[in-house]
């Protein structure tokens, strides 16, 4: 009973401090909304309007028609014409174009010859996404309108579907973005929590009172679970409103998954807080975890495509499991029961991190 009073005292104190900390309060709302707008609008794997130049040395009816078809895909923005492939290379090198279209003088004859490619795309292959687009374009068929056979006619529609239409990109991004935002804010808030009290001298007073380490830790974490759930509501709300991101599965189950994930991040943040000596160190550690969370979790790059070593690293991160859960629940209408493993990992992670934090926290100053 006394333990409960002490725990609630810590919770109430945290809430009161939070209410007065306008910047943190603004971050609670600002980060999710800012990030979802940023990611929702900026991240787009549906590549369009690549700057391109054409060197049409054939200059026949067919070659001109070919260039105009390329333009119509809207993938290439052909706004320059040059006379030689060397000039294309120069433009490519200078960075003024991403793709150069070289049409050789014998283009018409090459079109009729199945063994030889009709034209060449010179591509800035440093960016795999652009290279991928170019590879798609290479599959575009060319034929004389008057030709006896329009050979691969059905394939002519295959360029666009390969890249998700605008809507699908956001749909894939938002469930993962929930994980990124919660990782950032939850870990940041708690990572500085203990360090701040130590820096301000509050801790020296606190550890001389009957409050136990567990009461202090749990009390500090509890208010943020509520805040994390509010953020979840914000992100899914904005996602639905602006990007039409569906929640096809159970909303309640989504919140259960988020609860476990938030707890995992808060526990990890607390652990960092017991390691760091200053608030600045705590923030650095947070970003040290945030970066792999973005890169190795399957948020941006497909998890299966990563090297095995990176996959192991990714499996350690709570966000990897949470993104599987959110994508499953929100997009595939999966139930928690079907993905209980992922949930279990989050629970185990929370218990381990919290225990480590409580263990590491010293009630002495030495």
């Amino acid at each position: 009973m006394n333990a409960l009073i002490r725990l609630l005292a810590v919770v109430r104190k945290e809430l009161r401090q939070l209410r007065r900390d306008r910047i943190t309060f603004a971050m609670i709302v600002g980060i999710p909304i800012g990030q979802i707008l940023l990611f929702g609008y900026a991240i787009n794997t549906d590549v369009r309007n690549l700057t391109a130049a054409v060197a049409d040395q054939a200059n026949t009816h067919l070659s001109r028609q070919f260039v105009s078809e390329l333009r119509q895909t809207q993938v290439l923005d052909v706004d320059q014409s040059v006379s030689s492939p060397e000039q294309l290379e120069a433009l490519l090198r200078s960075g003024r174009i991403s793709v150069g279209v070289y049409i050789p003088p014998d283009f018409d004859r090459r079109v009729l010859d199945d063994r030889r490619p009709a034209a060449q795309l010179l591509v800035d292959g440093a960016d795999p996404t652009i290279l991928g687009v170019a590879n798609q374009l290479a599959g575009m068929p060319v034929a004389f309108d008057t030709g006896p056979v329009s050979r691969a006619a059905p394939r002519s529609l295959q360029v666009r579907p390969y890249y998700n239409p605008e809507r699908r990109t956001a749909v894939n991004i938002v469930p993962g973005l929930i994980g990124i935002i919660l990782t950032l804010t939850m870990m940041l808030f708690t990572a500085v929590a203990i360090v701040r009290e130590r820096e301000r001298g509050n801790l020296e007073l606190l550890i001389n009172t009957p409050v136990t380490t567990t009461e202090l830790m749990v009390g500090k974490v509890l208010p943020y679970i509520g805040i994390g759930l509010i953020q979840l509501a914000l992100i899914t709300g904005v996602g639905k409103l602006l990007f039409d991101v569906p929640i096809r599965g159970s909303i309640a189950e989504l919140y259960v998954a988020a609860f476990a994930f938030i707890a995992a991040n808060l526990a990890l943040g607390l652990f960092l807080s017991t390691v760091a000596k200053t608030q600045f160190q705590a923030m650095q550690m947070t970003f040290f975890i945030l970066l792999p969370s973005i890169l190795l979790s399957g948020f941006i790059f497909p998890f299966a495509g990563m090297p095995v070593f990176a996959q192991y690293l990714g499996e350690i991160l709570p966000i990897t499991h949470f993104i599987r859960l959110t994508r499953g629940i929100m997009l595939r209408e999966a139930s928690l029961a079907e993905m209980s493993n992922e949930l279990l990992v989050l629970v185990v992670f929370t218990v381990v991190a919290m225990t480590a934090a409580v263990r590491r926290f010293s009630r002495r100053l030495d």
Partner: protein
Amino acid sequence: MSADNDLAIQARGLTRRFGDLVAVRSLDLDVPRAGIYGFLGPNGSGKSTTIRMLCGLLTPTEGSATVLGLDVTGNTSLLKPKIGYMTQKFSLYEDLTVRENLEFIADIYSYRRPHRNERIAELLVDYNLEPQAKQLAGTMSGGQRQRLALACAVLHRPELLLLDEPTSAVDPRSRRDFWAKLFALSDAGTTILVSTHYMDEAERCHRLAILDRGVKVADGPPAELQKNTGMTIIEVVSESPSRAQALLNDLPEIASVTQLGVRLRVLLPSHIDAPLDLVSGAFRSDGLRAECRIVAASLEDVFVAVTRDGETRESAT
């Protein structure tokens, strides 16, 4: 056993090292119950380190200490509810109001309503904090913060109060009020251990330990310490204090010379015979007119006398 019970704090050979630095060196301490016990010493003399060891914040490198009959090197959870600790730096929450801070501390000590609110109301009146009840602690003056810190430290009515330089950031008026509070608490039976580097505060303590570079160099009631300095104090009033001081510095018998305005305070070991003649003789031979008389030792003289040993001890090693 009954003798032990009269002591709030008993320490034997208490030592604390930080790397090569010895912050506190084999300290023996007997603090009787229900009195104000002072730690006097300059910065870095080991006052804070000792207090932190006594409340279980720092583990002693060597030695032992019992506080209220409990060993501070072991589990201190039984000790915490019995002691109140006021840190040197203000350690309450600056972004909480006075009342919120008190509520938090009361909750931490498991005070329940309505008992809790009665206690807080009582403290707000006692510590003259009622006008500031809704003010954020961070926006208060040094004196107000200090009153809040003391109110929080005594909220749970501890048997022992450990105060680490509580008045270092407050004006003389607030210091007077603060000491009035300490005497009231002491009268009510609370044992108080207070560290300070102010002589006037040290003089108010029932008992005093003078710390110098981690070593206890004197221990006893202030009046007794003043009586037993082992020094003869001569006050010199001369037309040229600086010339007088230069002359005195040439005498090997003299332990220390301190200038206070136009006066000089001269300390000589008490085994020297006819000290007055020695001092006035030095002036006479140089033709300097000066008035010399033997005076009673002040606490400052005690401090100078005992810390001088520390200097010679240090230069010997």
